[in-house]
């Protein structure tokens, strides 16, 4: 049987979906039910602008995102992603009308992999996949109300969101679970009491300080320690914070998530015993998706490699274990050795002042570890500079610090972000300390 790109219908998609689901179940994949929405390319760009969320609050930046994608698509500079699926129960995925039939089949198999990853990977444990869609819808409605409220208005809402967006990714990082203000205080009191039992009296006045521990989750910090916010402002902070927390696991697991989905679309498509007219274009597409990118790490490329390697060396069970317990940084550290770096043909490059880019290290015996370390620095949360709240001065001044890891901040951007923080920190000045060219730098 052959399926023409223009004549296939929903029945055809359903037929293949049933087959895919059966195969996936047979392997032990365990995913959320998937709702596929069929849309045209224009709607697809619209959904992409809002990260696939069926409803999302309004902000001009999503209009910008739309314009850019639309422009690039029209210029032929980029295709659209073939798959877009969100972490929710049920998962919502989009299928573009313009896709050839074989591609829809590939996407459906791919989506099963993603949904399984969302449901089972530990990083996603707290992402509210059950309620996220309605939560976003409610947030949109409330923000709409604030924008229409004559006492607040669009301008204020927009500018507050601008500032929140500037720090939205300054949130939880690897191995740094955040403790609430209350929990930190209780811990300190317990510690003091312990010493007291031993007859040592510590300086209790410390407990009156507002911030006892540096805080790397800026939005949660504002909610707990900030003063003088109006109700709607607190609500906006919470909305943006929740969304960041929801998306953070996807940043942490881009390679494994895409790798897992590619690993499964490849396997499932193989088991489907497709006819040549579908199998050949499928293989072509698959190779295009997992090919190396010269300018950066292609998560499909590296992720697919990792799971293929794990299956070959340790069996499928190990693959399931890794998809459950690991994030990208851990997987790179644990499973990629010198041979793999050579096989993947990874290299480090260095940008020069005039814009030239040179290969600085290749994955040979001497340098592969440098390449790996550079790769880890460019993976997941490590792509986001680590900024934390160091202290609140008695004057109300907020002191931020940058945990410098050898990479300087872009100062133009940093200046502007600090400017944004000044707008949302209502009690006093805001300062940021970082290091620029080996010297302390204050903004």
């Amino acid at each position: 049987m052959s399926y023409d790109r223009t004549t296939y219908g929903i029945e055809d998609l359903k037929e293949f979906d049933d087959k895919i689901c059966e195969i996936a179940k047979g392997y032990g994949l365990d995913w959320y039910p998937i709702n596929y929405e069929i849309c045209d390319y224009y709607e697809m760009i619209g959904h992409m602008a809002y990260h696939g969320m069926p409803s999302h609050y309004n902000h001009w930046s999503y209009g910008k995102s739309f314009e850019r994608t639309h422009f690039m698509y029209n210029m032929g500079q980029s295709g659209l992603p073939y798959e877009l699926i969100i972490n929710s129960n049920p998962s919502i995925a989009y299928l573009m009308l313009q896709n050839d039939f074989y591609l829809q089949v590939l996407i459906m198999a791919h989506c099963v992999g993603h949904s399984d990853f969302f449901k089972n990977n530990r990083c996603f444990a707290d992402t509210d996949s059950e309620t996220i869609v309605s939560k976003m819808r409610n947030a949109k409605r409330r923000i709409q109300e604030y924008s229409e409220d004559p006492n607040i208005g669009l301008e204020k809402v927009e500018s507050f969101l601008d500032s929140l967006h500037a720090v939205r990714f300054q949130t939880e990082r690897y191995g740094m679970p955040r403790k609430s203000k209350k929990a930190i205080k209780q811990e300190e009191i317990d510690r003091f009491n312990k010493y007291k039992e031993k007859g040592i009296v510590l300086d209790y006045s410390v407990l009156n300080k507002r911030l006892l521990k540096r805080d790397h989750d800026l939005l949660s910090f504002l909610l707990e320690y900030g003063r003088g916010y109006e109700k709607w402002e607190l609500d906006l902070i919470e909305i943006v914070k929740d969304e960041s927390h929801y998306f953070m696991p996807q940043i942490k697991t881009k390679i494994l998530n895409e790798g897992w989905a590619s690993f499964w679309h490849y396997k499932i498509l193989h088991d489907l015993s497709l006819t040549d007219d579908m199998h050949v274009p499928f293989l072509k597409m698959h190779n295009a998706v997992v090919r190396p990118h010269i300018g950066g790490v292609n998560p499909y490329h590296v992720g697919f490699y990792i799971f293929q390697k794990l299956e070959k060396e340790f069996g499928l069970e190990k693959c399931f274990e890794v998809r459950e317990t690991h994030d990208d940084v851990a997987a790179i550290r644990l499973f990629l050795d010198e041979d793999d770096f050579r096989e993947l043909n990874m290299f480090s490059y260095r940008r020069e002042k005039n814009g030239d880019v040179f290969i600085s290290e290749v994955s040979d015996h001497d340098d592969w570890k440098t390449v790996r370390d550079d790769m880890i620095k460019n993976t997941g949360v490590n792509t986001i500079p680590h900024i934390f709240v160091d202290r609140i001065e008695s004057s109300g001044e907020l002191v931020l610090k940058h945990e410098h890891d050898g990479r300087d901040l872009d100062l133009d951007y940093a200046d502007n972000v600090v400017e944004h923080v000044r707008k949302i920190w209502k009690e006093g000045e805001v300062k940021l300390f970082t290091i620029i060219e080996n010297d302390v730098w204050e903004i």
Partner: protein
Amino acid sequence: MSIFKKHNTNADRSASDRRRHKEKIEKAIKEGIHNIVAEESIIGQSGKKKIRIPVRGIKEYRFIYDQGNGSKGVGAAPGSDIKKGQKIKEGKKKNAGGDPNKPGNQKGEDFYDVEISLDELAKYLFDDLELPELEKKKSADLFSEKYKRKGYRPKGIRPRLSKKETLKNKIKRKKAAIRNGSYDPDSGDRFTFHEDDLKYKHIDVTKKPITNAVIFFIMDTSGSMSKNKKYLARSFFFLLYQFIRYRYENIETVFISHTTEAHEVSEDDFFKKGSSGGTYISSGLKLANDIVGERYSPSSWNIYTFHCSDGENWSEDNPKALEFMSRLIDLSQLAGYIQIKGATNNMWGEEMAKIFEPLTSESFKVLKIQDKKDVWPQFAKLFGGKYEL
């Protein structure tokens, strides 16, 4: 097992966010446009021609790492033939004469190329500026009549009879007659036109006061006016022309170039002709006075006079220059003396700007331009824009 549905709700969900984004871009154009007014690309364009201008994108700031000198990244090569030190990307070649500190050269800049017409450019540029006492001239007595079709009337002259509307009325009446039984279509009787069916096209006359303006562009083309100075003068004149054109319906221009003697020349010659010889500032001013006397009665013309020179003059000419300038100021709605002078330029004698300074008033301004970047602020100053210096 999965659910499939055709999506047809909120089809254009990002429309309002796109509109907001567009508004922000327009604001950015408005704010950024002042920096490009002296760029080659817009000077001397005419008509409705579209020009492309780069506008800095509306940035979303967040903390990011510096992607500049020495920063590192990781890639993967498709083939096996890579080696240390290999160049994988060519930096941008430096533009000749480009300013290395220009923000546009920094990485990660979003630039939108926005295409706008000169008229739109004028709107963005000039909305905040005012012409002093526009239309103070006798223009109130002069009107241009504009004719415009405006609906239909039951009375009118025969040539304006609208056959279509008239027939429509007849058909309406006929249908109604059939409905209420007063006319039987099968009876063979003709259903005739009635006086009430007639409809005439109505023409509305609007009177608009005529606002005439003439701009005198006077430029010193003596040997000391270098190419660069002339370029600055040209930028300034271009803005003036666009601005005044933006405010008036009817506009004429007079180009006068002078060394020790003055000539009325074509626009083309005005900007292109080479420079040589000495300077009598008064010569250009005198010719302008003469031309006003011959062709542009101040009672019905708004006169604008602008004189560009590098400030050098034969000193024996200074008193005469002063006299003709003050006469011209009296005739003009607005006059300006624009001194274009490099920062390092040393000259002998007193510069003209100092000599003209005492004449400064509401309707006469002395401006100094040293550099491309002075063009807009000085221009805005001339028209009392909110652009503070």
